[in-house]
C-alpha cells in the first residue's frame, strides 16, 4: 500500500514540477477565473442584488466561475502526455491505477489552488456572506474532489480522441451538471444557515463523488490501455 502511494505521489509530483515550470494549466485556470471574477464583480458588484436573492444568485455565480475555470485548465493532464509522446513510457513504467490516482491527485492540487485563490476573492468582492463557514469549506472540499475525479476520467478519454477541445466540454457538462446543481444548493444553504438543506446537498455531492471514483477506477485501465 505504501509503495503504491509512493508511486502515485511520484506521478503527481512529476506533473506539478512540470506544471510549475511551464505554467500552462495554472495560467489558463487563473486567467479564466480572474477575468470572469472581474467581469462579474464589475457588472454586478456587492450591492446590485436584492438581499433575498443574494445567497442563491451569488452561489450560482461562484460555481459557474469555478466550474468553467476548471474546465479551461484540467483537460491538459493526459493530452499533454499524448502530444509530447511521453504516454508510452508512462504506460510501460506505471500501473494504470497508479497513473489514474496520480493524475487525480495532480488535478486535485490544481483545484485546491484555484479555489484557495478564487473563493475568498469572490466572497470579498461580491460581499458574499457565509453563515456556516466550516460547513462551506467541507462542501468546497467535496465539490473539488468530485470535480477532479470527473475531469480526470474525461481528460483520459478525450486524450485518445482526435477532436479533443470540444469533446472535453461535451463529455464533462452532462456529468458535472447534476453535481453543479447540488453544489449551488449546498452553498446557498451554507449562506443562509439552513442545515437540513445543506446536509442533503452534501450527501448528494459525496454520493456523486463516490460513484464517479468507483466508475473511474474501473474504467481507467480500459481507457489507458489500447
Amino acid at each position: 500500500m505504501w509503495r503504491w502511494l509512493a508511486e502515485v505521489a511520484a506521478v503527481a509530483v512529476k506533473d506539478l514540477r512540470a506544471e510549475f515550470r511551464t505554467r500552462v494549466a495554472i495560467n489558463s485556470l487563473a486567467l479564466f477565473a480572474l477575468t470572469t471574477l472581474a467581469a462579474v464583480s464589475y457588472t454586478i458588484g456587492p450591492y446590485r442584488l436584492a438581499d433575498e436573492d443574494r445567497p442563491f444568485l451569488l452561489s450560482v455565480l461562484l460555481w459557474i466561475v469555478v466550474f468553467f475555470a476548471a474546465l479551461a485548465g484540467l483537460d491538459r493532464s493526459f493530452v499533454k502526455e499524448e502530444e509530447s509522446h511521453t504516454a508510452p513510457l508512462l504506460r510501460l513504467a506505471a500501473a494504470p491505477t497508479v497513473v489514474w490516482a496520480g493524475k487525480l491527485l495532480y488535478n486535485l492540487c490544481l483545484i485546491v489552488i484555484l479555489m484557495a485563490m478564487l473563493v475568498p476573492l469572490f466572497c470579498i468582492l461580491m460581499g458574499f456572506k457565509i453563515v456556516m463557514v466550516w460547513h462551506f469549506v467541507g462542501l468546497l472540499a467535496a465539490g473539488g474532489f468530485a470535480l477532479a475525479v470527473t475531469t480526470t476520467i474525461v481528460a483520459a478519454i478525450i486524450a485518445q480522441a482526435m477532436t479533443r477541445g470540444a469533446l472535453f466540454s461535451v463529455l464533462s457538462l452532462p456529468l458535472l451538471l447534476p453535481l453543479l446543481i447540488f453544489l449551488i444548493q449546498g452553498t446557498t444553504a451554507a449562506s443562509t444557515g439552513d442545515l437540513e438543506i445543506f446536509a442533503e446537498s452534501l450527501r448528494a455531492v459525496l454520493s456523486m463523488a463516490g460513484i464517479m471514483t468507483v466508475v473511474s477506477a474501473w474504467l481507467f485501465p480500459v481507457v489507458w490501455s489500447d
Partner: protein
Amino acid sequence: MVSAVITGISISFSDLAKRYDLRVIFRSVSGEVLPGEVLVINGPNGSGKSTLMAILCGLLRPSRGEVRYRRQDGSIVPRDRWRRHLGVVAPAMAVYEELTALENLGFFVRVRGLSVGLEQQRRLLERVGLDPDRTTPVRGYSTGMAQRLKIAQALLHSPEVLFLDEPGSNLDPAGQDWLEGHVAELIEAGRTIVLATNDRREMGWGSRRVALAG
C-alpha cells in the same frame, strides 16, 4: 558492466497481424528470440517495424495472433507483468522535457518502485555520456543527448528484455560505438534484445531476423 541475469525471458510470437480499419499493416508474422540473442526486425519505411515492436512490448494488441513471454523455467509471464521485465528505446517515446535528466531518472525510479539510489542514477547518466550535474531541462538537449537519456531510462531497472527501435539514430560515432559495446555486454549477460532497424551496422548485431514486407 552489466549484471548477469539469473532468469532470462524468451519471447515467441505467432501469426501476428495488425490492421487499422481496412488498412493492413502486416499479417502472419511469427518468430522467437531467446535470452542472449538479438532479434532484428527490418523492412522498408511504413512496413510496421515500430508497430510490431509496440505489440511485442505490450503497448498495442494485435488484430490476430499471440505473443508469449516465457521464463527459463517454462512458466509464462502474464501480459500485465511484462512491463516489469522490459526496457524500451523508441523514436515515438519521449522523456519529460520539462525535467532535467536526473529528475527524469528519479521519476522513473519512483514510479517503478525501484531501489536505485541517486548515486547509481548519476553513474548511469555518466555511463551513457551525460553530465548528471547539468541543470538544463531536457528541452534544451540536442536530439543525440535526448537519445542517450532514453537509453539510460531503458537500462535503469536492468530489464531482462530490451526493445531498441533505431537506437543509434541521432547518436554521434562515439555514441554508436558505446552502444554497440554495451549491446554486446547485454548479450553476454543473457538479456533478450529486440532491435528494429534498417542500419547495416546494427543489423549485424542480430542472431535472428524478421523481415517485414512494405
